[in-house]
């Protein structure tokens, strides 16, 4: 009883935030992402496939205000930084995207994966007999994680059947272990997403009406 009395004020507040939700089966998308990566010292590209996990439309006063989407993607990328290394990486990311009513969006995209680097300069080692050897291939294997912060323009399927969005942002990639610590690799990213496939299986789009 004591607990119910305590909860009562909260229960009274809830109607103030009341919302009408409705869900319906919507068309899901599988997107193909191509994003060149660059910084003053390196360039590269990331290629990936993204699947829409959930979609929510938020309506206020019978008008759509913004949309929230969750995407799961798998990306294969590479970059070359002169004098440092070339890197090949495979990552999976979970993107949180918020699209406003004009189609502009911001996205936070944490990711996790693996990377293999290759030195792109001559590399020498010395064996136990003090003989100097030129290494043919040299590099390190790393776990990689980080996040992307993107801003972009979303195109609705009605307006554009193939092109889904264009975006630009920052990609902060870290490598572990670099001498038992992490190494930072920031880069800028610009990219496009194209509609690879549209299907309607097991997907619910949620529409939330706020007063």
């Amino acid at each position, binding site marked *: 009883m004591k607990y119910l009395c305590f909860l009562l004020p909260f229960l009274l507040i809830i109607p103030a935030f009341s919302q009408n939700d409705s869900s319906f089966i919507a068309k899901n998308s599988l997107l193909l992402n191509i994003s060149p990566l660059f910084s*003053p010292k390196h360039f590269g590209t990331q290629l990936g496939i993204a699947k829409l996990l959930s979609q929510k439309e938020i309506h206020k006063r019978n008008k759509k205000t913004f949309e929230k989407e969750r995407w799961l993607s798998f990306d294969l990328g590479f970059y070359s930084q002169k004098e440092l290394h070339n890197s*090949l990486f495979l990552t999976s990311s979970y993107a949180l995207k918020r699209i406003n009513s004009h189609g502009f969006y911001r996205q936070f995209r944490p990711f996790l994966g693996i990377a293999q680097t290759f030195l792109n*300069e001559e590399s020498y080692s010395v064996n136990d007999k003090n003989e100097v050897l030129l290494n043919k*291939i040299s590099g390190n294997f790393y776990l990689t994680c980080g996040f992307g912060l993107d801003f972009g323009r979303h195109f609705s399927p009605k307006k554009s059947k193939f092109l889904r969005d264009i975006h630009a942002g920052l990609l902060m990639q870290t490598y572990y*272990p670099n001498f*038992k610590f*992490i190494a930072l690799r920031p880069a800028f990213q610009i990219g496009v997403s194209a509609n690879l496939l549209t299907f309607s299986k097991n997907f619910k789009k949620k529409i939330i009406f706020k007063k």
Partner: protein
Amino acid sequence: MKKYILLLPIFMLFISCQKEQISISTSISDLFYLENQGAKMPVLVEGNTVSKVILIFVHGGPGGTAIGFNNDENISKIVESKYAVAYHDQRAAGISQGSATSKLTLEQYADDLKKLILVLRKKYGADNKIFILSHSWGGLIAPAFLTEGNNQDLVSGWINLAGAHNYQLNDELTRAYLLSYGKEQIAKNIHVAEWKPIVEFSETHTPDYDFTISSQYNSFGSSVEAYIDDINTSGSGGILNLFIKKKKGFSTFWMLSNSGATYFSGLTKDILKSNYSDKLSLIKIPVLNMTGKYDFTVPKGLAEEVMQKIGSKKKRLIILQHSGHILMDHEPAIVWGEVVKFVDENK
């Protein structure tokens, strides 16, 4: 599509395959990596390899960078026009890359230096004369290398710029210098507010292989240089060079990551007991010591001890009158002029 994805790793391997390039010229700029015990360390050789003289820059830190910090226009103009300089970024420094198994110990750094000499001799010719040019923490690696086995046979001389061959003595001297100079400045009413807490700390804290105290003295050592007008600060720009100038073989983010790796490795704690005072007598090669009059980070008393205890017959000490710890930046013309003179005499 699948075919192209499979081709990507092959493409990466192709563009990463190495071919040996050997440059003998009066003005070279070669970048290569030394791979040793889990670490891949960049080496930038610049200058005149026709001279058959190579100076290896063993940088300070630990966790600093020779390629990013020490490779400036003064050394290029005065030294590289005559001799070659190999800027070696140590493990967990500059753009070096390493695995989790790579060790960060003083012995390992000394072993890396030996391997680098062997690579330079192989790449540019065994008839090259090698000189060690060490600064600060590099002055601890140098005696660790020179007092090991027959390593001295590989080099023709040691240029010791503000070298820290004995960590505990370093902290004791820093404390003593801060106390005496600080009290003098307070009496003269110069920067009293800044000197007072430093003197108070020094009066109450005796260095005793304690990392926190040692770090505090190190921090005071560099910060007090800002209160001394007699230090010439019109050098090449110092640490700002790292962020402003685009340099070959250098990445600011990678260097900062490596500084973190060094800090968290525990190396700075492990070297607190490093002491080569008693082994200095084993060093017989020619030595040039240079230090700044106002160096509180690695005070001139250390160079004076090297002069006293070293076994070399050819030895010289120069105390620069308008320099702090980064003497190459404070009085570059004198430092590099003396380096060239020393190499001329001993090559």
